[in-house]
């Protein structure tokens, strides 16, 4: 006989016993889809946190985020500001005995947080810079002068020298409405 109460009323009452009403089992699947890693294989050994350069200087615990991924604790994960303290050094990923990429779990959660409009401003400003110039760190006058002294051209052989390539980049970014959302979130934060 299958495990159960053998009582339809009780079965209905407890069918969600593994998930708190605020949890979202779809969250685990979404994180695994975006990160392309097997989060559910985690057995919580903590090798990741032990390898993490951010852990000793903050309350950021990568192991906790992986647990949140597996438990479907979407709100708890996406609203925690520690989500943005991962330097993406991938030490946890290289050392994970289960072959999981915890770093990519963080990256997936950050992508999902962006969909909730949760994202630090510096990330959005990078989006704006890349959209307008093609570069996350664009050229400036001091650097242009230095380049010329070196015998290089003032503008590098990138979108800086060939701005005709920028519309193509903007098309890619617009396809995903990334700039539009970045502008909106930044504007909403200003007042």
């Amino acid at each position: 006989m299958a495990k159960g109460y053998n009582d339809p009323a009780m079965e209905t009452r407890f069918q969600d016993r593994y998930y708190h009403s605020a949890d979202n089992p779809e969250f685990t699947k979404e994180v695994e889809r975006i990160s392309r890693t097997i989060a559910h294989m985690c057995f919580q050994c903590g090798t990741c946190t032990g390898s993490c350069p951010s852990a000793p200087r903050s309350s950021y615990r990568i192991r906790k985020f992986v647990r949140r991924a597996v438990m479907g604790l979407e709100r708890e994960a996406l609203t925690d500001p520690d989500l943005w303290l991962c330097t993406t050094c991938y030490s946890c990923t290289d050392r994970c005995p289960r072959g999981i990429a915890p770093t990519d779990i963080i990256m997936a959660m950050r992508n999902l947080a962006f969909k909730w409009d949760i994202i630090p401003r510096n990330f959005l400003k990078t989006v704006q810079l890349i959209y307008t110039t093609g570069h996350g760190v664009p050229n400036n006058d001091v650097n242009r002068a230095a380049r010329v002294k070196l015998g290089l051209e003032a503008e590098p052989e990138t979108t800086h020298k060939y701005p005709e390539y920028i519309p193509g980049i903007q098309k890619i970014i617009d396809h995903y409405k990334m700039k539009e959302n970045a502008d909106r979130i930044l504007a909403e934060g200003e007042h």
Partner: protein
Amino acid sequence: MHEYAFFLGCIAPNRYPGCEAAAIKTSRKLGIELLPLKGASCCPAPGAFGAVDLNVWYAMAARNIVLAEQMNKDITLICNGCYKSIYEVNERLKENDDLRDGVNEVLAEIDMEFKGSIDVYHLAELYYDPKICGVDKIRDSVTRPLTGTKIAVHYGCHLLKPIKERRFTDSENPMWIEELVDALGAESVQYRNKMQCCGAGGGVRGFDLAHSLDITNEKLINVTEVGADAITEVCPFCQLQYDRGQIEIKEKFGIEWALPVLHYNELLGLAQGMTPQELALDLHGIDCKPFLDKIR
């Protein structure tokens, strides 16, 4: 002559142009010609940009790769962040039909298609590869040996990690860049927690500068403890973090460091006889003079 499309990225051409100039000149002496990759953009930044939407990260990196496919040249580059974006996206798109189809759907809008016809290399890995260059050739190109200097190597993260997605075999204690440094006549030194991150990546430098600098400060403690005269790296973003970072550490924590930070190509340039002016070392936040005095 081995020819490669030279992917510049952002920080090398726009903050440390000496790295770009040095890469072109030093490589030419080693039989490697770096060709301009016209119209390339930011790789885009794997952490600061990929964190927002990985779909756009894949598509934009693919656009840069396609520019080189159109030249029919493999890509080489001098930044670990660029390496993660360009190398990893290239490999992932070659291996995964679902990812490649998604990216090509978007690239079709700008009349481009990712074909998977080229490979991506970090310039340092080409220098180490005996089929392309090799340590002996580096040693033979030196006209002003960096004798008497102790140099700490910072590998950076995205060159070697995640190791499963790299050609390299060791991300815990690699020694091959030390071999490249020793070939210049300098003495490479080992220090505690060598493989720790510089602290800049993942958008953390922009999000929480103090947190990011605290990681850098720990590295600086470990490097100076063994008496290093300079740090070398193969990533302009790590360079920025160590170089400008020392000034920021002084402002934020009141701790004073004065450790010169040089990209491997700048070191190689010096060893091949390039002048500090030809390398724009004056753009560095930390004065390189103490190091230069040692090799005079």
